């Protein structure tokens, strides 16, 4: 549920980066923060959570237009995966408008990816959302590691593992170098805004 801020004539929506620990969610956001400086509003909040960091900042998508004459402001979050951070997860996932699922291409992380996706589905369900309906984009991260001879899963296999039923747009990425990061975010914002437009049309 996006929030209308009538005072500022803004629509505030939430995009969350989800995925198993150390898959590169944080690296994605850090890359966006440093490469799209002009569109970033305010500072980046970084909280050290066990095993991972939780990040947050405001982002102004450019070139995606306005909705009903209101500017759109996107809050970008990563969410800590550990079970114990339930309060944080609850705050971040409640009212989420779009999700980027970052999967780890390392062969050894295959099961972690699937568990995390299942976990996402369960969490969304708790807040009354369906993983099939929420705007969702996949990123198969760490593709660059193949050059170093580290065994990666093939894209076909990852599609089969994670995206067989969902059939959402997916991108190859390497968050460290920034490859695919912009494309992933752009697609997710597009889906999110389209879904918001649909909601508002329905409300008219």
């Amino acid at each position, binding site marked *: 549920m996006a929030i209308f*801020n009538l005072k500022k004539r803004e629509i505030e929506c939430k995009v969350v980066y989800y995925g198993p620990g150390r898959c590169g969610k944080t690296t994605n956001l850090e890359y966006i923060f440093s490469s799209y400086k002009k569109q970033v509003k*305010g*500072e980046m*909040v970084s*909280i050290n*959570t066990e095993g991972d960091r*939780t990040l*947050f900042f405001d982002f102004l998508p450019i070139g995606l237009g306005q909705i009903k004459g209101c500017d759109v402001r996107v809050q970008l979050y990563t969410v800590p995966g550990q079970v114990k951070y*339930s309060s944080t997860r609850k*705050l971040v996932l409640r009212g989420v408008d779009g999700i980027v699922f970052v999967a780890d291409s390392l062969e050894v992380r295959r099961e972690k990816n699937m568990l995390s996706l299942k976990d996402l589905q369960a969490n969304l369900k708790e807040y009354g959302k369906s993983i099939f309906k929420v705007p969702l984009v996949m990123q198969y991260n760490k593709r660059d590691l193949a050059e170093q001879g580290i065994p990666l899963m093939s894209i076909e296999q990852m599609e089969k593992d994670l995206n067989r039923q969902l059939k959402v747009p997916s991108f190859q990425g390497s968050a460290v170098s920034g490859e695919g990061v912009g494309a992933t975010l752009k697609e997710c914002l597009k889906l999110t805004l389209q879904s918001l437009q649909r909601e508002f049309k329905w409300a008219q």
Partner: protein
Amino acid sequence: MRDNAVLAGSLKFLALGDIMQLLGANSSSGVLRLISRYAPEPGFIYFENGNPVNASCGTAIGLEAVYALFGWTDGEFEFTKENIVSQRVITKSRMGIILEGLKMVDDGQVKRVGPGAPSRKSATATDSDAIPIVKGPLVDYMYVADEEDFFDGEYIVEEGKHGSWIWVILEGVVEIVRETPEGPLPIVRLGDGSFIGSLSSFLIQGHIRTATAIAVGNVQLGVLDSQRLAQEFASLTPEFRGFLVSLDKRLKQLNERAIELRQKQLDTSDFLDNKKPVMKQGNVEEELYVIREGSASVVRQEDFGRIPLAQLYAGDFFGHTPFLDFGHEPESASVMATKELKVRKVDVAQFQKEYNQLSTTFKNFIDNVATCVSVSTKVVCNYYKKFGLGK
């Protein structure tokens, strides 16, 4: 509620993180006041243009106080629109505070203040000897028949004496004490809005007091119209009355446990031996049961051991009570029983209906008993940790 409050509600419904985001989006300036039955003093957060600039919670101020308030999961809040003259002590960004605060709660760095929250990674700073204060909701003066003043140290009721009066504390603190062979043992302290007297005084004429109540500092009490309350009690269905009596018994038993632990005489075998959990701590449970035959025990699982809380017998209730939170099963305790236990399901919806129809004072009274159960449980757990079983 003060008349200039512009936003008020329950923290259970809208958590502090959400309130702060709301005030932030609205660029509001004013004071957010939080009250909890489990904290002796209210907490304050001062906002300027939607950003927190200062706060206080007990002795803590500034950022430390805001973080402490994130642990308040149960309570009420109200926001009053005011121009803030307070100095800007907090400079951290709003979202930074929210995410950090929630993380600290999840990490156990901030103490959870609420019913029965098991002490996770138990905060080391808390003094296990400190007797917690139980506060009640705002007093409904409709039921206050008379007012009475007591001076510091004066006895309000004495254990073992007869009496069926019920008071509500208008102002001040009252200590509840049980007599033990080694002298009086303080059980709990009651603050504004709490009740003195027990539900079982409705049952028997010439009820015998089960504990002593002593004024700590000067205290002003409201004498309640106990006849009216007794009539209300009598008009309830037998089953609901049974439920209330069962709740009252639990409270008495918790006080017994505290005494037993203090004297190192607690015998856990009655609670644990040959028993299997019928309801596991933390599991989701929707039903409420009444025991027909056999017995069961309520046990809290903590890092430092399994703490027996109460024994339940025929006619006692256990399970999920949607309208009351007394910090036991199913969220914060297990129920153990032998194979002989026979139970019957209770129509919870009917109970809920009956509860909703109660007068405010009666509801407050029951809520207060539930809060006392939850706080006494904490006392028992603290004693268990401190004194162990001693056997």
